[in-house]
């Protein structure tokens, strides 16, 4: 058997693409992301090439300098949002999945043959509100509160906001603040370029005496000046158009997310109406204080990635499942496991090239080395709250799983 060391990202399930040896993590479809890059870089390049020289000389050199800084910030935020792990929850390993299944079966009791078993829901009480945790059939876990499964990326994401095609990634717990800062700074950049384009047009027109000449000789001269106008300002017109359409969408989006942040809600919760309506539960995560909510979302702790993308693992190794310490953490793959597993577990716990759904081969493999059939006989621990009876939201939860 050939054993070779591979990085863990190569074996991760889900529909993400990875670049730079696991440092970059994105969704599969990146076309719209390239469009976003093209629009931003294209428009800004035109601005720097055509408007800035004129404005720097005639108004102030601070204008292009500030534009450059703003542009760099926008790009940094965009790339940070697109390339980082949004907060993906790794799928349950076979033993954990089996353990949960047994707990569910114990709680369900005997289901008469022919009847559908009740939906897998767990009730938890958070801040005196009952929140239902749904079971994810793909990841084989009960989703933590506020997590949701993204069908485009085929992952459960913690504090799932939405999947943004413009950014080419999901927006979740780990990259929401970068996404928000991206929309905010892009709004500022768009407004900035739009404003200075108008200023540029006005100043050019005044310089060329267009307006004065128009007053004096309204006959043939306007046509000549029109051609001059187009020659100097066609790029400006293009930029103004791009900025105008961008403004309405991006500024609107920034406003919407500012509203969500002040209430500590996610887009997903807002769309599903989780906390709105009289008979619904009130948002248990909100601090009921706008400042505190904003601080938590924007200035809260930087959560590490729990996907160890750059860790090394043995492929086809029968003995040691120890993961060697991964290389130094970069800003994007921030999960560092400095302590390798010192004791040797005989079973290869890390999924091999088979998906987690093919759990039987790996369990069979581990059974050769350890008496794992005994796992089935130990009594299930009765430590979870009783499962709820079938609830009306079962259909919406299945529908939501499909739409995400």
């Amino acid at each position, binding site marked *: 058997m050939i054993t070779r060391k591979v990085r863990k990202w190569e074996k991760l399930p889900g529909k993400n693409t990875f670049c730079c040896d696991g440092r970059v993590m994105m969704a599969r479809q990146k076309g719209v992301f390239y469009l976003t890059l093209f629009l931003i870089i294209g428009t800004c390049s035109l601005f720097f090439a055509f408007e800035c020289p004129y404005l720097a000389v005639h108004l102030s050199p601070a204008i292009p300098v500030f534009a450059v800084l703003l542009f*760099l*910030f926008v790009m*940094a*935020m965009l790339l*940070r949002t697109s390339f980082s792990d949004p907060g993906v*929850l*790794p799928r349950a*390993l076979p*033993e*954990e999945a089996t*353990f*949960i299944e047994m707990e569910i079966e114990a709680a369900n009791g005997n289901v008469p043959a022919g009847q559908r078993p009740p939906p897998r829901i767990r009730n*938890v009480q*958070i*801040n005196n509100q009952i929140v239902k*945790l749904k079971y994810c059939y793909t990841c084989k876990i009960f989703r*933590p*509160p506020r997590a949701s499964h993204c069908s485009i990326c085929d992952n459960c994401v*913690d504090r799932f906001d939405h999947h943004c095609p413009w950014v080419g990634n999901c927006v979740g717990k780990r990259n929401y603040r*970068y996404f928000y*800062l991206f929309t905010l700074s892009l709004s500022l950049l768009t407004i900035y370029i739009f404003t200075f384009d108008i200023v540029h047009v006005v100043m050019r027109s005044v310089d060329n005496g267009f307006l004065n000449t128009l007053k004096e000789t309204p006959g043939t001269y306007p046509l000549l000046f029109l051609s001059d106008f187009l020659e100097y300002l066609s790029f400006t017109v293009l930029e103004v158009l791009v900025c105008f359409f961008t403004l309405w969408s991006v500024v609107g989006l920034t406003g919407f997310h500012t509203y969500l942040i002040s209430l500590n809600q996610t887009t997903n919760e807002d769309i599903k109406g989780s906390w709105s309506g009289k008979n619904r539960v009130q948002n*248990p*995560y909100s601090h009921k204080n706008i400042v505190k909510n904003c*601080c*938590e979302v*924007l*200035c*809260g*702790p*930087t959560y*590490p990635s*729990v996907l*160890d993308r750059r860790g090394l693992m043995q492929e086809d190794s029968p003995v040691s499942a120890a*993961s060697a310490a991964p290389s130094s*953490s*970069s*800003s994007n793959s*921030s*999960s*560092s*496991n*400095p*302590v390798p*597993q*010192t*004791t040797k*577990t*005989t*079973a290869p716990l890390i999924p091999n090239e088979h998906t987690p759904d093919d759990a039987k081969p790996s369990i069979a493999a*581990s059974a050769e*080395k*350890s*008496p*794992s059939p*005994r796992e089935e006989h*130990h*009594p299930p*621990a009765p*430590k*979870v709250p009783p499962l709820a009876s079938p609830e009306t939201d079962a259909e919406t939860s299945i529908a939501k799983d499909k739409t995400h």
Partner: protein
Amino acid sequence: FFVQTHSLQDLQQPAVSSKVFIQRDYSSGTICKFQTKFPSELESRLDKQQFEETIQTLNNLYAEAEKLGGKSYLEGCLACLTAYTIFLCMETHYEKVLKKIARYIKDQNEKIYAPRGLLLTDPIERGLRVVEITIFEDRSIGSGR
């Protein structure tokens, strides 16, 4: 004379008997916290006190990592001003605490859990979802379970 033969298995590492998964406790919200309820599978191996102390310490460490306070706000604002490039050279507060947690778990394993034929797995390796406790077959006491 009496000949004692050792089976080959005794010379190998102990086999895994079963695993217990300590689930997350969401009663305080989405912060990382694990349930302190003592699982019945460990009754024969471990003191309830010991277990609760381990889990409680872990919970406290995670609370420290996720604490919202002046220090975390300062770190967040400073990082924002540098467009988060500061994290290329600086370790975040959360990462520092995670290292502390890893050291604590290693320490607990060496002192308490390994002598009892148990192994604690760092929750970060399970996506911060569960604390996995592996129960090894207890060869010294006859047939174990």
